[in-house]
């Protein structure tokens, strides 16, 4: 498949935020180029990325001082898509390193880590799931998935539902139906979601208070809280079941992403729509608090009388200079990659997650144009809570894709 270059910036787990330049800014870092191809990568706020050792088959990211693996060891999956998220609970380490067990993990909120332990991947991209393992602080529990739901394509969860603080879990099963999962005493109860009984699901994504459902024919449904309009129905009312976002009638959506309190959609024409909370400029629209930051530089040619946007309850087009091929949302920042491999980022930048060399939030999309990234063609972008990861496929002629240039610019 060829080598992949991975660039990252943002929060690195709190151990050291000082970079070589002596300022309190992590510049875009550089990982070893020998990663197998990554279909998707999402990282959480404690994505520990200091000394990275990536080999063909096993991916370990180690903490500098502990020198123990802190995220999933994927064994024998070099030719399989893998979904990885990082956590740092020590119990979690033990599960992941059991031989023969491949794990897909995610954090939802803070206290509870949900892990779906995956036995193997099948040809059609589903995973054989052992069950859902939850652990929080000192407590842990296994929930087994009943037949025929041991094979899933994806699972998402968010902590808040509209009435009580219990997790909302939704999944896409082997045949692309949408499931709602309820955790019982020791087992998980799976039912097909009635509102989506007749549709095939392409993707599910979740924010802190809401879930977005993308169907195969390009429609989006949403449920959860709409405290900042993140459901996209034009009001702030919660929805307990998936409700179609009618604003997209006649438009085909090919990708969705969700931030903490934001939603984003990419159409088949390469247009980006955003809605939800514009705190810190997370939607890429003018934000008053952003403008009041010391050292804030307005967008070149920006209209000084532009209206400030606090939230958008309806999907709104975010104008970007180019046609977009993929999108991703972090907690309060977001990014888009164009069909020509250019990267645009906007939103919260407290930990340098926009890769611009400073920590000022941006309330408008900025083209990532630093020396490290100029002229490089980015294929995909993933936003973690407070970090951003860029994948650059190495070209056939230039096997290190400018690695020399990156090293000399540091």
């Amino acid at each position, binding site marked *: 498949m060829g080598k992949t270059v991975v660039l990252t910036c943002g929060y690195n787990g*709190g151990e050291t935020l000082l970079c070589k330049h002596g300022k309190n800014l992590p510049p875009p870092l550089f990982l070893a180029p020998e990663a197998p191809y990554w279909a998707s990568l999402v990282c959480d706020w*404690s994505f520990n990325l200091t000394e990275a050792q990536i080999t063909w088959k096993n991916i370990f990211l180690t903490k500098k001082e502990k020198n123990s693996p802190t995220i999933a060891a994927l064994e024998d999956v070099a030719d399989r898509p893998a979904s990885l998220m990082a956590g*740092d609970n020590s119990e979690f380490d033990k599960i992941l390193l059991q031989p023969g067990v491949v794990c897909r993990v995610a954090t939802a909120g*803070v*206290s509870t880590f949900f892990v779906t332990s995956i036995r193997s991947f099948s040809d059609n991209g589903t995973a054989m799931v052992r069950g859902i393992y939850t652990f929080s*602080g000192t*407590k842990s529990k296994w929930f087994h998935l009943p037949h025929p739901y041991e094979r899933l394509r994806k699972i998402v969860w968010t902590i808040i539902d509209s009435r009580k603080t219990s997790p909302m879990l939704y999944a896409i099963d082997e045949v692309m139906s949408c499931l709602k999962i309820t955790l019982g005493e020791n087992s998980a109860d799976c039912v097909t979601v009635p509102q989506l009984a007749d549709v095939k699901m392409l993707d599910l994504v979740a924010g802190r208070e809401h879930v977005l459902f993308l169907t195969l024919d390009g429609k989006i449904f949403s449920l959860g809280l709409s405290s900042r309009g993140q459901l996209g129905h034009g009001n*702030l*009312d919660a929805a307990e079941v998936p409700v179609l976002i009618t604003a997209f009638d006649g438009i085909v959506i090919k990708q969705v992403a969700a931030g903490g309190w934001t939603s984003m959609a990419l159409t088949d024409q390469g247009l980006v729509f955003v809605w939800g909370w514009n705190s810190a400029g997370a939607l890429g629209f003018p934000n008053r608090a952003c403008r009041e930051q010391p050292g804030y530089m307005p967008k070149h040619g920006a209209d000084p009388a532009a209206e400030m946007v606090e939230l958008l309850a309806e999907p709104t087009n975010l104008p970007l200079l180019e046609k977009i091929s993929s999108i991703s949302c972090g*907690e309060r920042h977001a990014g888009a990659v164009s069909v020509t491999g250019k990267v645009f980022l906007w939103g919260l930048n407290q930990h340098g997650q926009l890769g611009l060399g400073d920590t000022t939030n941006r309330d408008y999309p900025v083209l990532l144009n630093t020396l490290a990234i100029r002229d490089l063609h980015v294929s995909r972008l993933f936003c973690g809570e407070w970090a951003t990861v860029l994948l650059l496929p190495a070209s056939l002629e230039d096997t290190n894709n400018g690695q020399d240039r990156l090293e000399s610019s540091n």
Partner: protein
Amino acid sequence: MNDESRHCLCIPATPEDLPIKILDVNIVGNHVAGQFAVLFQQTLDFSTDASLALSRAETLLLYAWQELNTGKWSDVNFNWHKLYAAVSWLKAVATFRCRTTGESSTPPEVWLDIIKICDMGHLMGGDVWEGILLRTISAAEAKISELSPAVFAEPQRKKRTETVTICDVLHPIEELDRPSLAHFQAAFLRLKRPLMLKGILETWPALSKWSPEYVRSICGSRTVPVELGKRYTDEDWGQELMTISAFIDKYIYMLDNPDKKIAYLAQHDLLSQAPLLRDDISMPDYIAFAGDDDPDMNAWFGPEGTVSPLHHDPKDNFLCQVFGEKYVRLYEESESEKVYPHESTMLFNTSQVDVEDPDLERFPKFAEAVFSDCILRPEKLAG
């Protein structure tokens, strides 16, 4: 750091006196608990780099802030409030260490920033370690007075030479001078009838002391949430944080406010934030008698022309007017349908009708709605 600064920041003689295990690891998780422990150590160990502690504090505040903004505020686990409050105090100490060089005297601006940081902690998180945030604020305020004694303007009480009527009173609420508790209970509380009580606030020092300048002298440097815009039902309504001093200048005195924009310090627990103000009032017996020995206490402070839209509250109210005048109109519960409450989940307790200028085409029944009203002036208590 010298002893005087330590005392002002409320740092105990031995840091071990501050219990570090104030968070439930089952709620906040191992990583947050671990980061908090590191922050605590780094902040109070003066040999370490304070800027590292400061950035770690910012990160933990961000984390807690995210949790405080998820779901309903009332459902948020109290550990997140504790974390926010505790980290705010640690951030204040780390800020002091970063901004103070050697033995030279710390300028008042640093103490003002410390007050701001602690106020944010108190607003979002309450308090922790036996009220350390409010104690630190108190000490910082004293320090500022010492460094730059404020010149207090003579309290200016605008004495009206004539009574200016805000609005005509059409169906006066009954007035009684210090009724007996029994009569109050039987004739009003139990029957949910409104009453204007006279003579109750005569003993309040607030009545002679309170003025904008007095409030500024007590708590001018404190940060409060202010509502911008005339009514919370208006489209351009919003909330902003500012110091009380800034609020008084811009919205009470209308300085640097050419459009005469309206803002309201509304429904804010000012008396908990500034306990010295609390000393100027006392709880009327009628409130305890009504069955609540720990009532919510909120303050409303604003210029002429502020309006609270027609709404109902889940609890009974005792509204005390300390200075200025307020027109109050009350509708009984039986009139609910005629005042057209909003149907949305957010504003279900608020009427859609603009009482000052009702749209009778959209809301015809409003013309028949029965109400009682009054103008509250100091020395009357409407209950």
